[in-house]
């Protein structure tokens, strides 16, 4: 494994990746949404090991590998008529997750999944009920839902 976390090669927009990634995370973090604040223990920032990699790197790689496996899903992959995600949608989901990983502001997602309608879902969950999903519904476009216990559900899109 490389000791250096390489900057993702592709972007979700025409702006340079670091600035774009910062913008994405700015919109992603609940502390930036309507002035709400994340409680301690929610979406904790990853510690870095001595190679500059997130301590949970294995979790990130597992999720990225699983996302890549979605390229193999054909129509009717579930035996009930599901649409396979297009390669562009899968690549967009991979790009977005690599951007989020590169920024190091969030832990690895809890799960990734293909939707039966051809979109790709990235999910974060915590025991306290925090739930966030990023659904890449078409290339370079995602719908985000964030639920924090006791608070109104937030929805937005990337890009806004």
């Amino acid at each position: 494994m490389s000791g250096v976390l390489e900057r993702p090669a592709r972007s979700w927009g025409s702006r340079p990746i670091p600035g774009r990634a910062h913008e994405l995370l700015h919109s992603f973090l609940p502390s930036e949404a309507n002035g709400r604040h994340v409680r301690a223990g929610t979406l904790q920032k990853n510690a870095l090991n001595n190679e500059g990699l997130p301590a949970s790197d294995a979790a990130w790689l597992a999720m990225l590998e699983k996302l890549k496996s979605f390229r193999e899903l054909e129509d009717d992959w579930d035996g009930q008529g599901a649409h396979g995600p297009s390669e562009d949608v899968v690549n967009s989901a991979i790009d977005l997750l690599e951007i989020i990983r590169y920024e190091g502001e969030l832990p690895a997602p809890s799960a990734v999944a293909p939707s039966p309608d051809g979109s790709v879902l990235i999910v974060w969950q915590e025991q306290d009920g925090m739930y966030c999903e990023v659904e890449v519904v078409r290339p370079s476009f995602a719908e985000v839902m964030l639920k924090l216990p006791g608070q109104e559900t937030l929805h937005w899109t990337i890009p806004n």
Partner: protein
Amino acid sequence: MEDELQPVDDGEFVYRRIHRQHFQPGIPSCVLVTAFRPTDDDKSGLSVFRQRFVQPVDTLLSVKEEKRKDHYVARLAVADLRKLGLSVVPDPDPLGPHGHSLIPELTTQAYHADKRRWKDLQEELAKLASADIVHRPDSLVS
């Protein structure tokens, strides 16, 4: 044989098939929301099966044989669905497993017309399903 057209009672339970791609072990809500996304085929509602007519594994009989081993089955209380504003109506399928029913509010048209509402609700459905997994793919492995 009981009449599958009998109205669904609030005290009943229904089964929902969950593909393994929509299941992530070891997290608070192991069933993912994608398990409740309607497809193009769900024009009249989301499919479930009434517990009083079938065993959990029987619900997989209408899934292609080679894919059956890829499914979990979750159980949902009709009363819990009602609390979410959902109903269950009988929709017997003479060619499929007994007890086929629909959640008529959750169609592909309704989902795309108000995705934010439905995504929120599907997350609640996923939590309910996560709490009562009644069949696991391993059960079909000999």
